[in-house]
């Protein structure tokens, strides 16, 4: 059985031994990176600087909320606005693997700049087992390049430390809980490192981000409300994806022609396999009505994804 207390004790000892001087951590405010930050903070205290990058692909109000939450946890947080840099690099890019690699590299460049300023020789990230398993290598096929593993550039200016590398999400949650994180952090649903960029099929333009960001917010709000009202249990992960095709609709007797948004929700333990969530039709309908009304100029249709993993993956790219 996984023993979280023993894990914490050993990880903190190992981090104390390994990290000399200052370290920088790439933090998103999700379960993995926040748990990793608290572990490293226990080991090296004030020598840890947390860097929260606004890639332009974060969810609604996420940067502001996470900065507050992380500061409240006693971490020293630096927010870097890199929106324009990310948008510029991803302009015209449609291939999913190329997107992930560009994002992975740009993340590292931003972290290198901070590390140089802070004179930190160590860079921490919240990599967990599925990240390196799915990124492939050796015998293992590459399913997708996770930004923090397969998406890393070849030349990197610091030493990478990954205290959660052998854990799965459910184990990280137990560690996070034992470290005293609030439930809204350790129970938070997974969110991919490349963010909304991989929830836009095709070019992840600033205009498309606005659409998918709003659609994701609606999916989250409606599902969380339905959970609160006892209509359903909370899925492991739930979000919206903007598909690269348009379909016809009718708005007030006038022809409409807009994009298709897919609603995705899955049940899983560790993300390595998943079954689609059997969301009640009423909840799906409320999501559909809200998305097609709130985004009437952009979205004409909402579909629900009923694919398991395998054969699908949870995210689309």
């Amino acid at each position: 059985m996984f023993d979280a207390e023993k894990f914490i004790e050993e990880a903190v000892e190992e981090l104390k031994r390994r990290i000399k001087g200052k370290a920088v951590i790439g933090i998103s405010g999700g379960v993995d990176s926040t748990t990793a930050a608290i572990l490293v903070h226990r080991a090296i205290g004030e020598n840890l600087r947390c860097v929260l990058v606004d890639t332009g692909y974060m969810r609604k109000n996420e940067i502001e909320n996470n900065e507050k939450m992380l500061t409240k946890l006693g971490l020293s947080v630096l927010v870097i606005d890199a929106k324009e840099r990310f948008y510029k690099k991803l302009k015209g890019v449609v291939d999913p693997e190329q997107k992930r690699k560009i994002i992975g590299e740009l993340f590292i460049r931003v972290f290198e700049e901070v590390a140089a300023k802070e004179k930190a020789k160590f860079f921490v990230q919240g990599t967990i087992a599925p990240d390196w398993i799915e990124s492939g290598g050796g015998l293992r096929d590459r399913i997708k390049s996770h930004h923090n593993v397969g998406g890393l550039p070849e030349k990197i200016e610091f030493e990478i430390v990954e205290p959660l590398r052998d854990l799965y999400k459910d184990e990280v949650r137990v560690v996070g809980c034992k470290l005293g994180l609030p439930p809204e952090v350790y129970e938070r649903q997974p969110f991919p490192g490349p963010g909304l960029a991989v929830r836009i099929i095709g070019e992840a333009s600033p205009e498309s981000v606005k659409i998918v960001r709003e659609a994701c917010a609606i999916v989250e709000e409606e599902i969380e409300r339905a959970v609160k009202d006892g209509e359903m249990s909370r899925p492991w992960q739930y979000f919206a994806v903007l598909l690269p095709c348009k379909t016809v609709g009718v708005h007030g007797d006038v022809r409409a022609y807009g994009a298709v948004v897919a609603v995705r929700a899955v049940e899983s333990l560790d993300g390595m396999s998943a079954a689609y969530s059997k969301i009640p039709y009423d909840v799906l309908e409320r999501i559909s009505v809200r998305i097609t009304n709130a985004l009437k100029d952009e979205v004409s249709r909402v579909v629900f994804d009923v694919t398991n993993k395998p054969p699908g993956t949870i995210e689309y790219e």
Partner: protein
Amino acid sequence: MSRPVKVYVVDNGGQWTHRIWRVLREIGCETKIIPNTTPVGEIDADALVLSGGAPRIAWESPKLGCCTDYLDHFHGPILGVCVGLQLMTVHFGGQAGPSEVPEYGLSKLKVIDEDDLFKGLPKEFLVWESHNDEVKATANFTVLAMSENCRIQAVKHFEKPLYGVQFHPEVNNTEHGEEIYRNFVNVTRSR
């Protein structure tokens, strides 16, 4: 034996290699993942699980390293999963190749003979699959289970403690998966 049973996971590059390791750890085994190129003489385990992986059985079996050595010379029980099962049956005179109907995700398993692996489990339950190839014919093995689109889902060797499953009991969505690994470990323990 009173010490924990040592079951090593031979890595054939599967997405779920690490999951096998995790399930074995959760049921109290001493376990680690070893490369499939580890010489058999260096393995001090009581039993082995050959993981699944991307190599295609008909033309990529060299990628499966020393697995056939383990089948011939390892002293304890072996459970082959997915391509591990395919290699095992081919090695002892059977045939395997591309599936007519590959299975991905959900499938219903029908147990034909509960033998050791399915002891105490229902006759039908839901399992998770992910395979492009399958076993077409076996020699020297009893077929223990099937699914609608795959006739050979689980086998046991007539004489040796060799077992194989086409589906993935290590995947959390597979029903009774942990019990299948427990049954395999019990075979090892009772030897």
